[in-house]
């Protein structure tokens, strides 16, 4: 699709609303250039020519889906919004399926080779497993016979050596793994013309959809309608119904508006991860958990998340949300559809949570 385009071109714009950056050159001594410039300035707008279609499915748990291939690509390339349902981030399933089921000749040759590699690897792994189990059984036997410590140590050394050798042989082969056979189920992937059907949609987080509706007019859906679907009929909601959503959105907007690419942190058991520019450019360095400023959790709750976050060498950020006006006032604003006033009535603060090792901080 977008092969061969350098990232700086492909991801030129950080937001799906583009700036007006193609105004003509202005020559101070040439009045005609002024007029032309002014004409262009007046005529051009930031708003999208055509908003992006979304489908909302589900009842209590709403899913917000973008199904058009170009729209998916647009949202991905202009700010990295949404996640492909069968991909880890950018929707790439169609490409993968096409390569698998409709390969060109070059690919076909590789496929056969790959298939063999896969087979060999499988059997190697099975062999490794078998060998390891065998040696463990031998050790147990040895122990039962009452061997000396030296004998045992010797055996363990030998075992390690054997297993290491087996492993190193395995590593000689490529680690690309793929399932290549055409399967019965694959029939349902073809349309009448023999093309592969796009099964994958781009799914937007509720907060992403809010950002692309309420903050930037990108999605073809009314803000009121979106909030109604996500939080219920404004007339009947109470504070508890809307607060969860508000809390997450306030944090999302906060980080987005300061330039971060904010994506779901579910993989690491937290709310968000923050990228600078976006996934193709930098690793995410921050994991964010959004909390109410009065929220209480057990220490183990924190330490469990912190261990996962620390394990992938990221910084664990606690983002606290504090309400500045009364709950009744928030509800009133919400019912009047004054969402920006709702969101600006919450304040954010951050605390970095980090394990501290006493023995490593002595000098």
């Amino acid at each position, binding site marked *: 699709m977008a092969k061969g385009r350098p990232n700086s071109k492909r991801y030129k714009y950080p937001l799906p609303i583009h700036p007006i950056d193609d105004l003509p050159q202005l020559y101070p001594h040439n009045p005609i250039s002024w007029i032309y410039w002014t004409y262009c300035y007046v005529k051009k707008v930031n708003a999208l020519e055509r908003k992006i279609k979304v489908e909302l499915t589900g009842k209590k748990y709403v899913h917000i889906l973008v199904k058009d291939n170009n729209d998916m690509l647009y949202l991905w390339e202009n700010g990295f919004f949404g996640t492909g349902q069968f991909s880890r981030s950018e929707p790439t399933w169609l490409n993968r399926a096409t390569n698998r089921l409709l390969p060109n000749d070059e690919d076909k040759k590789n496929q056969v080779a790959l298939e063999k590699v896969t087979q060999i690897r499988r059997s190697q792994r099975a062999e490794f497993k078998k060998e390891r189990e065998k040696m463990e059984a031998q050790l147990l036997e040895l122990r039962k016979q009452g061997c000396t410590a030296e004998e045992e140590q010797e055996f363990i050394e030998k075992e390690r050596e054997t297993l290491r050798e087996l492993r190193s042989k395995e590593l000689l082969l490529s680690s690309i793994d793929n399932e290549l056979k055409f399967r019965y189920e694959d029939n349902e992937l073809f349309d009448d013309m023999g093309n592969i059907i796009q099964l994958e949609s781009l799914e937007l987080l509720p907060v992403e959809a809010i950002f692309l509706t309420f903050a930037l007019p990108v999605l073809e859906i009314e803000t009121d309608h979106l909030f109604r679907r996500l939080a219920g009929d404004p007339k009947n909601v109470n504070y508890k119904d809307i607060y969860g959503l508000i809390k997450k959105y306030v944090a999302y907007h906060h980080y987005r508006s300061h330039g971060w690419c904010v994506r779901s942190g579910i993989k690491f058991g*937290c709310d968000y991860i923050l990228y600078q520019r976006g996934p193709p450019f930098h690793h995410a360095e921050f994991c964010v958990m959004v909390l109410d400023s009065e929220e209480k959790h057990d220490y183990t709750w924190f330490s469990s998340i912190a261990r996962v976050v620390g*394990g992938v060498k990221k910084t664990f950020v606690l983002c606290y949300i504090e309400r500045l006006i009364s709950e009744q006032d928030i509800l009133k604003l919400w019912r009047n559809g004054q969402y920006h006033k709702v969101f600006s009535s919450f304040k954010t603060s951050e605390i970095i949570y980090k394990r501290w090792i006493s023995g490593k901080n002595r000098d």
Partner: protein
Amino acid sequence: MVTIYITKFDNGTYSDPCVFNVADLITLREKFNIYGNLSGTLPINTQQNNFLYLPLKISLDQSIYLVKLHSVNLKIFNQSNDNTINLLSNSTLNDNPNANGNDDNIGFIVTNDTNPNNENNSSDDILINEWLQYHQDKTRFTFPLYKKLLSEHISVLPGSRFGCRYVGYPGDPLKYHSQYLIHTPIDYHKDKLDLLSLISTARLGTVVKKSQVISGCISNNGSDNEVEVKLFTLEWCGFG
């Protein structure tokens, strides 16, 4: 018999249970698979934290278990009784049981772990029952969990640094790796699983190669003695 020491503070709260005798430590370790944590300075090597000395701290669930089994002395010091005054008035320098006049230690002044007079006598049942009563709510779920783990031949150490209540071992931690990270039980019927923390829990388990154990408690007839515990193990599938 093992002696567990507890202080009852003036505000009605209790101290954590402590054990002050090496022989008791051995009994707990070998007879009850209770290892506890040494928390005091090791006199022969006072400048490190890897190897420590008495007192041994054991968990509340473990001490309740031992007390209910009647296999320990529970010695509760009542702070308001101010035993310090008694100590002074009842004993003079000469018959001070802590004063060390051993022949083989001539010229060496020993500070003992315990006063022999305090050992081998348990506090009376009223005090002990008060103590059990005091902790009943707090241990409503964790105590049945502990008993359940014992019945599965799992012994435990505290687990906060792995983000759980207990780390579970198949045998003495001196020799065996831990296998389980065991979480505080939830209400089997009422409590909803927090899927987000379930995810980080399972991921952590993968990384440290231990099984994550979650559990639900069912109180039958509202009676605390009849809390049933159901265990489940959580594991990341390795895909998705």
